[in-house]
């Protein structure tokens, strides 16, 4: 089964609002990565957070990691219509095995 699971499956918000999506995983990880996928396109890497980090920022993105709860969240502030996409988390296990993607959260930002 997939290591990472995103929640919610779908999210619809108005432009300017914040969007929060979550990722839960089962086994210990070395790091966790978030990717964005626009419709019909490949994935684009957004941010990587290591297991010893708790929070990371990149522009309007804020990622948190709680290893005790085995979960991560991605916050997009002041969302724009161009943020409409699917967002995936990928976990890299501690034993340096292959990374595993969840099934993603589909975000729709309405103008």
């Amino acid at each position, binding site marked *: 089964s*997939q290591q*990472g699971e995103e929640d919610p499956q779908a999210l619809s918000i108005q432009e300017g609002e914040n969007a929060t999506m979550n990722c839960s995983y089962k086994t210990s990880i*070395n*790091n966790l*990565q978030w990717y964005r996928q626009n419709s*019909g*396109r*490949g*994935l*684009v*890497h957004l941010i*990587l957070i*290591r297991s010893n980090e708790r929070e990371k920022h990149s522009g309007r993105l804020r990622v948190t990691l709680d290893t005790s709860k085995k979960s991560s969240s991605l916050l997009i502030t002041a969302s724009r219509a161009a943020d409409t996409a699917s967002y*995936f988390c990928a976990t*890299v296990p501690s034993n*340096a095995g*292959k*990374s*595993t*993607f*969840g*099934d*993603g959260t589909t975000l729709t930002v309405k103008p």
Partner: protein
Amino acid sequence: EAGVAQSPRYKIIEKRQSVAFWCNPISGHATLYWYQQILGQGPKLLIQFQNNGVVDDSQLPKDRFSAERLKGVDSTLKIQPAKLEDSAVYLCASSFIRGINTEAFFGQGTRLTVV
């Protein structure tokens, strides 16, 4: 820098036919991945190469799927014979080194429809 190139972008074939996809990774990237992404799901790793050697092919259906990266640069993924359930987007990705703290760069994918 140029991104990961994949071709074709779309392919429609009948079941039991064969098909091949091509990927040219970013120059200098030693690690190359092939993923299968079924509609509504996340990418599933089929095979990972480090230069021209296979690192992981545990989820590759070897009775019908094959992949090669002969010169450690570009790669081909073949399906023979195709089944209806092979309908998916096939994504190629590459990364500079095989490391656990490296990001992967993805191509736009090949959308395969098996009818």
